[in-house]
């Protein structure tokens, strides 16, 4: 089970009209990651309709297949280069875009922000950049798309590049690469563009190939969050994902919030009997002790424990047309932990598209506003500093089963 993975999880975000679907379609096409006959059919219908090949339909096809297939990871699609495989998290068009952006993208290792060379950064671009910041991604790539529509002009690229750099700087984000591309025409995606010889940097695919897969979380403190419990052959198998660190057979662990201790009896993976499992792996475990454990339990070690608390402070990005109100009761989710709570205070409000401070203290948080929110929760949960462990350092706020907000937890030292 210690086998190193050879894939990189990326999230592609940006304004809805700036060419995300076309870019994803192009990535699949240029890496031969889609059946040839499907490409042939799409090409033929485009031709019959008197148009050039439209790569966004490749994306539609992937989405269609995804909707029809019964898979657990419905929001993930794959393409590969000779170096490794890529997982695109939260392909565009998904109905629960924002929810996936935060929950699915919580495992992202790199982010691609797409901006149209014609339109430049718009409000949505800035909001998505804010989300990338919330995801704490260190590897960010900006693609300035639709260069074909601005005659591949360097000046236009530089103008948009400057604009992007300026607003990313306000967020303390520094993109590793900023690449001029045309997803529709294939410029600087897999091959260097002949029309933009002035661009001396890498192509999109070679830039992605230069990103590093995150390995460090396997060495981080153990966090295994129980997703479900399956009684199989008189064994109680605790199923879940190792969110960080490594879990080993024979290891002594602490179960939170009950604070019971236990010893790992076995690690269960279909048709295998591994002795350890690392961050990112979905596994089952059994314990030597017969303990009553429920969904949401956090398994860690005595040495590196998360904070168990009934009060959470988080920087919340609110994404619902119905305001978040002080005093409102709401559902709080942290990986598989779930509880209800009451909004106690809202402070330091800012606008996510202008990054301007709105007010120090507030009664409500409106759509697309970010604020520091304090919540008193009904049942204590185990949380981490997102700078230490991303996965348990974030919360989702839900109202009527719909994710309305996402937040980065502030751990206050007492």
């Amino acid at each position, binding site marked *: 089970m210690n086998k190193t993975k050879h894939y990189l999880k990326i999230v592609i975000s940006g304004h809805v009209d700036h060419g995300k679907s076309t870019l994803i379609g192009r990535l699949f096409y240029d890496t031969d990651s889609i059946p040839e006959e499907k490409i042939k*059919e*799409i090409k*033929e*219908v*485009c031709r*019959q*309709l*008197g*148009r050039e090949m*439209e790569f966004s*339909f490749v994306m*539609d*096809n992937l989405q*269609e297949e995804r909707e029809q297939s019964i898979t657990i990871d419905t929001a993930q699609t794959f393409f590969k280069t000779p170096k490794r495989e890529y997982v695109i998290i939260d392909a565009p068009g998904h109905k629960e875009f924002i929810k996936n952006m935060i929950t699915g993208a919580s495992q992202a290792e790199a982010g691609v922000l797409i901006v149209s060379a014609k339109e430049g950064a718009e409000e949505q671009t800035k909001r998505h950049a804010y989300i990338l910041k919330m995801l704490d991604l260190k590897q960010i790539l900006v693609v300035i798309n639709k260069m074909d529509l601005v005659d591949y002009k360097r000046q236009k690229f530089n103008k948009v590049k400057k604009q992007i750099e300026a607003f990313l700087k306000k967020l303390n984000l520094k993109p590793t690469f900023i690449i001029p591309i045309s997803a529709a025409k294939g410029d600087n995606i897999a091959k260097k563009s002949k029309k933009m010889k002035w661009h001396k940097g890498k192509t999109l695919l070679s830039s992605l190939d230069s990103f590093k897969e995150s390995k460090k979380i396997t060495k981080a403190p153990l966090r295994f969050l129980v997703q479900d419990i399956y009684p199989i052959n008189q064994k109680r198998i605790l199923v879940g994902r190792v969110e960080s660190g490594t879990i080993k057979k024979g290891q002594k662990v602490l179960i939170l919030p009950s604070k019971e201790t236990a010893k790992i009896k076995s690690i269960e993976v279909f048709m295998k009997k591994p002795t350890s499992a690392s961050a990112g792996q979905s596994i089952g475990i059994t314990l030597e002790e017969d303990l009553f454990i429920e969904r949401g339990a956090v398994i860690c070690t005595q040495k590196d424990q998360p904070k168990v608390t009934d009060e959470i402070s988080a920087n919340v990005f609110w994404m619902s047309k119905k305001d978040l109100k002080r005093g409102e009761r709401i559902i709080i989710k942290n990986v598989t932990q779930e509880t209800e709570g009451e909004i106690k205070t809202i402070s330091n409000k800012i606008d996510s598209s202008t990054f301007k401070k709105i007010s120090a203290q507030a009664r409500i948080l409106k759509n697309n506003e970010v604020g520091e929110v304090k919540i008193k929760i009904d049942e204590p949960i185990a949380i981490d500093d997102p700078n230490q462990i991303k996965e348990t350092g974030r919360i989702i706020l839900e109202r009527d089963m719909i994710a309305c907000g996402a937040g980065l937890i502030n751990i206050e030292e007492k």
Partner: protein
Amino acid sequence: MFIIIGIDALEKKLVEKFNCSHLKQKYYGQTNIKEYRQPRTLVLWSSFLAGKNLEKKIVALGNKKMWNFKLKKSETFFADPKKTKAIDVPGYTYNKKQHRDERQMLRDFFEQKISIEEFDRPIFTHFRKIKKQFINDLKKDYDILMAYFDIADVIGHLSFGNTIKMKMIYKNLDEIAGIASKKAQKMLVISDHGMKSIGKFGDHDEKHGFWSTNFKIALKNPKITDFAKIITKNS
């Protein structure tokens, strides 16, 4: 200019699914065609043009002669305005040969005489021809300009289950509506009936058609025949 885009078998669910904002325009909904025994192309479009139910009259001609039915200008909402044009509209300016060939090809496909590609090709060719003519005519100053597109119906019969193909067609029709909307003072997008899935194939929806306008109409559950008066009043 009052522009009418007639689209055979335009299905409301797909217009919404594919987010075809130009086809939807400002106001949209379904027409009620339950009064017709069958959603026949010629019957529904002729009734639309005349503003009255012509099913009895047309069906009485029999299955073969029915296709020769043709309304006079004076019997349609094209009667009063000076400058009008109707491109390939069933029951009026219909290209009989083209549509007879299309029906024959459908039979040929089910008798396994031709492949789906062979079936599709002339349909697309005809579509491109009508599209080109319509876009050209948009530059002229008509009182009423109407074009009829049968691609969603004919291709849909064999490929309704192929979502990507249908999306590509709907998006193209949406683009046409977008171009037309820039020229239209008033615009109506109308279909005779919708379409439902029969496995990978498609069949006519017998209960509803589709309508959309860029202006408010005072109809709650419109019939396809209700629009003639509106067109006359607004053109």
